[in-house]
């Protein structure tokens, strides 16, 4: 694998081998005093973030450092980007400076794909850490890792993704990955928060959360993305919360074994009630923990093999 740009087109065998690697890495590091592997010694990984992030950037940085790569963080605010440098020039600069892998987050959909094209000659790998409303593949992979851990398997499981589907890159990555892994996905959202073309996705669509709850193995809640909303998608935050927020009563409608996921950052009281977020049914901190191992696995699959021509 040279780049990880999207889960669309990621086949089941590749996805499963990344998840297996993450599992083995997790077990290899369990209970160890020295959480450091020499695998990526001498490789340079640069995170290039044009949008804010806590968990994605931090977990990529930890993942790289635990595998002994040199990790350098570049954010748009403190770099030449604020002087007006273009994405392409910034990327070429990083590649020329010796980056083996660039992890990029950008507000424009498709930014990671363009970057991979520009960096092909330099041989630098690109990981998409979120591009606009398009994809966020490592989030979907860590969600799948968490589901596999909690439920034993993903195949045949019924998983609802609830909320702001329209603006969510997490959803697009999850839909493709979960479909590849054989899960049965239902999107639950008000019609205003569903994208055009959702009929062509490998999912079913519902507008009624309560009707779906009893048949679910997992529910994944999405943050309502106020920063991307410039119009009346729903009447009020309170009304959204009443119709689609996961509260304790709704949690009781779900089967005993069903788990609750949220990619974070959560808006407590909006899409998820505080008591639900803190309940043992929620796997939200597991997601973050698995995120580190999963991102180690991604770096391993991108950087620990012979050069291939992209």
């Amino acid at each position, binding site marked *: 694998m040279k780049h990880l740009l999207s889960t669309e087109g990621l086949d089941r065998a590749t996805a499963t081998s990344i998840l297996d690697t993450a599992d*083995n890495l997790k*077990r*290899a590091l369990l209970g*160890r005093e*020295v959480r450091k592997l*020499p*695998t990526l010694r001498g490789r340079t990984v640069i995170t290039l973030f044009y949008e804010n992030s806590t968990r994605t950037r931090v977990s990529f940085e930890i993942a790289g450092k635990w595998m002994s790569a040199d990790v350098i963080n570049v954010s748009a605010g403190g770099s030449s980007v604020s002087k007006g440098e273009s994405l392409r020039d910034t990327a070429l600069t990083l590649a020329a400076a010796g980056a083996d892998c660039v992890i990029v987050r950008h507000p424009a959909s498709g930014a990671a794909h363009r970057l991979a094209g520009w960096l092909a000659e330099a041989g630098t790998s690109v990981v998409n850490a979120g591009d606009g409303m398009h994809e966020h593949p490592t989030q979907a992979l860590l969600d799948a890792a968490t589901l596999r851990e909690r439920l034993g398997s993903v195949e045949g499981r019924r998983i609802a993704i609830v909320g702001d589907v329209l603006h969510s890159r997490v959803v697009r990555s999850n839909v493709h990955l979960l479909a590849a892994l054989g899960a049965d996905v239902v999107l639950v959202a008000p019609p205003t928060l569903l994208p055009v073309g959702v009929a062509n996705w490998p999912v079913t669509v519902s507008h009624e959360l309560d009707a779906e709850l009893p048949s679910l193995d997992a529910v994944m809640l999405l943050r309502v993305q106020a920063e991307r909303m410039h119009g009346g998608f729903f009447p009020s935050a309170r009304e959204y919360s009443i119709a689609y927020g996961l509260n304790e009563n709704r949690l009781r409608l779900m089967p005993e074994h069903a788990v609750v996921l949220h990619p974070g950052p959560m808006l407590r009281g909006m899409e998820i009630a505080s008591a639900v977020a803190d309940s043992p049914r929620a796997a939200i901190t597991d997601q973050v923990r698995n995120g580190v191992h999963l991102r180690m696995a991604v770096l*391993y699959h991108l950087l620990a*093999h012979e050069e291939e021509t992209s």
Partner: protein
Amino acid sequence: MGIPSRGAPLARRLALKIAEFSGVEVPTGTLDVTLYRDDLRRGPTRPLETTSLPEGGIDDRLVVLVDDVLFSGRTIRAALDALRDHGRPRAVQLAVLVDRGHRELPIRADYVGKNVPTSRSEDVAVLLDEFDGRDGVVLK
């Protein structure tokens, strides 16, 4: 401690034999060395195997590494590095089923099943019931 894949069942078998002949129960484990290899960038992505330490850990104990074939010695070099990250054994020894020569590092085995002189172009494959349905060593 067996080095996956084929060292792992060999280690378990050795422990069973030791228990059978001497009555001493020897704890076993597996040690995946993939993440410590120096040749990861010379081939396609290698899948990882499981690491499981013997009960009680390895600190201050005698650890015998077990592998099927000793060749360049690079796997054992990686195993010694991996072991160091898991603890500090009192001593480390090496047991292999087949020593085929052609060492590239100053490493030798303490216990050898059989020395098999080979040419570099040959391939030594150890077959085990657990993986291959029968036991055997094949020289190609």
